[in-house]
């Protein structure tokens, strides 16, 4: 059972060859087996998974259960789960139990079979999952390596077979980069495609929930499960949800594919670049029209992001003040209580970004930093618009490197930020992008990133499916 994709498992359950309870039991057992090595979860919920699986089995007798509902899932610990503690990888929310479920989870189903809350960098800020107050997650492909981040727990859970698929969140690459480093598929949908209601906010203009799965078809099915308009999220898109599986097998004949020049040179590991180049040749053989495209403002992606995201962080994280929820460190006056609560509750990276954002927004610096960054953001969007007038899909590496060693970049925040070189412009423009395993370099997985215009996920998934078929890569649970 452990080698099936989520789609295959769902079909077997639908045909009553396997029960939801049996699937949950297999997931729970796998979690017990490997969790000591991997540490993919902050909180495991085996009892809850069984209880809900039994309810799904009972409901199946009456029909009306949707294909995906019985599939055991790992949920990143920044998504609110009613009555199940939600830490965001932070000490400040160590005992926080939300009063409601995130809308994306409710869309999935009333009895979502959740095996646990997946570890992540604190408030989703990081690229290695080392910024978690609950210890680093280890990459199932090499336990001395990081799984990437910030959705590293979700990626490692899928790669290790701790549940069949997972939800992550992506603000600057946090679904795609860990997917790439763990040899799985990671999709960041169009901004607004999946409701953010109940997602504890990091940078509200960039955050998006996305599927992390064993293959592209699973990503299409999981997006189907969670997508849709939600009046509770004012940035949610009131755009019809198409059938994401319908054109999946359509191939790439005639598709115009642009290779991003700025992301194929300096700063990209040779093995990574070669894997991407070889897949581009395969796409050409399969009938795609391939060309090179330049997006000149991409080089400003990281500096722009590291103004806009921390600015939004400094505002969003101001709610953690020891008054309405989370940690409170007692003190004599209210200001000292705020300061000490936040000092003890937040880790290094959260503090750094609060400081950076507060600085960039403070009197005298606003125009030079935040206002300028918002204009560069416009330029990056214009670059994409020009590119999409000539190409249907853009291609690049997902991450400039394969999985690096735990501790290697921990004391060099700038080096860590450059992990998201290829993924950040996508969030600034709000477009969808997917990472697909493209092969191995030094025995570790390489991710290929595909990008397309707003709300063109069906085409993006179709191209991703073709990449997946061309790639010399087969999913099997590790270690």
């Amino acid at each position: 059972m452990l080698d099936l994709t989520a789609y295959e498992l769902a079909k077997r359950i639908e045909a009553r060859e396997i029960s939801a309870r049996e699937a949950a039991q297999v997931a729970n057992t796998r979690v017990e087996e490997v969790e000591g090595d991997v540490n993919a979860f902050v909180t495991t919920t085996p009892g809850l998974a069984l209880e809900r699986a039994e309810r799904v089995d009972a409901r199946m007798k009456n029909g009306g259960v949707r294909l995906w509902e019985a599939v055991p899932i790992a949920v990143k610990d920044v998504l609110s789960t009613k009555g199940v503690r939600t830490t965001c990888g932070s000490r400040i929310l160590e005992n926080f139990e939300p009063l409601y479920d995130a809308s994306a989870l409710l869309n999935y189903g009333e009895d979502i079979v959740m095996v646990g809350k997946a570890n992540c960098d604190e408030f989703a800020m990081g690229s290695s999952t080392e910024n978690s107050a609950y210890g680093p997650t280890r990459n199932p492909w090499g336990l001395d390596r990081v799984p990437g981040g910030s959705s590293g727990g979700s990626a490692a859970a899928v790669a290790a077979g701790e549940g069949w698929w997972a939800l992550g969140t992506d603000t600057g690459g946090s679904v795609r980069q860990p997917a790439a480093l763990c040899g799985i598929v990671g999709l960041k949908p169009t901004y607004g495609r999946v409701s953010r209601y109940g997602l504890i906010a990091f940078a509200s203009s960039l955050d998006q929930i996305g599927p992390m799965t064993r293959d592209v078809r699973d990503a299409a099915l999981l997006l189907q499960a969670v997508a849709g308009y939600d009046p509770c999220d004012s940035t949610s898109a009131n755009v019809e949800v198409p059938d994401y599986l319908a054109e999946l097998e359509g191939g790439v004949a005639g598709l115009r594919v642009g290779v991003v020049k700025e992301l194929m040179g300096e700063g990209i590991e040779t093995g990574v670049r070669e894997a991407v180049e070889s897949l581009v040749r395969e796409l050409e053989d399969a009938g795609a029209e391939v060309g090179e495209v330049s997006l000149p403002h991409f080089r400003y992606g990281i500096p722009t992001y590291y103004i806009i995201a921390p600015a939004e962080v400094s505002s969003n994280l101001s709610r953690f003040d020891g008054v309405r929820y989370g940690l409170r460190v007692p003190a004599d006056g209210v200001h000292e209580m705020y300061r000490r609560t936040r000092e003890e509750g937040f880790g290094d990276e959260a503090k750094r970004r609060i400081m950076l954002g507060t600085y960039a927004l403070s009197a005298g610096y606003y125009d030079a930093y935040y206002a300028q960054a918002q204009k560069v953001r416009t330029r990056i969007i214009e670059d994409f618009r020009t590119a999409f007038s000539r190409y249907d899909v853009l291609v690049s590496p997902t991450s400039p490197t394969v999985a690096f060693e735990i501790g290697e970049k921990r004391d060099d925040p700038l080096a860590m930020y450059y992990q998201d070189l290829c993924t950040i412009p996508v969030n600034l423009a709000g477009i969808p992008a997917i990472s697909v395993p493209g092969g191995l370099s030094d025995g570790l997985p390489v991710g290929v990133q595909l990008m397309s215009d707003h709300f063109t996920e069906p085409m993006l998934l179709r191209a991703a499916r073709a990449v997946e078929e061309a790639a010399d890569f087969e999913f099997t649970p590790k270690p």
Partner: protein
Amino acid sequence: MISEEEVRHVANLARLGLTDQEVEKMGGQLGAILESIEQIGELDLRDVPPTANALNLTNVLRPDEPGRCFTQREALSTAPDPVDDLFAVPRID
């Protein structure tokens, strides 16, 4: 490098306590990050409109109709130190 005084000023704006050691480390790290960020200043963007939201959404409003909301008890159940059915804070200074 950001001066110690400036780090303490920004930390105060953010209501964030920092140890002396953190203040020193933060000055160097923020300085390095800001130096790398400053390259966006080289672009002439005087006539470029800013983007706050990639989908250009503006003022999405819902109808002003009452709906289900949390009870007072529910809303207070996550509070660290409520007093008499209210959120409570130490003395305002």
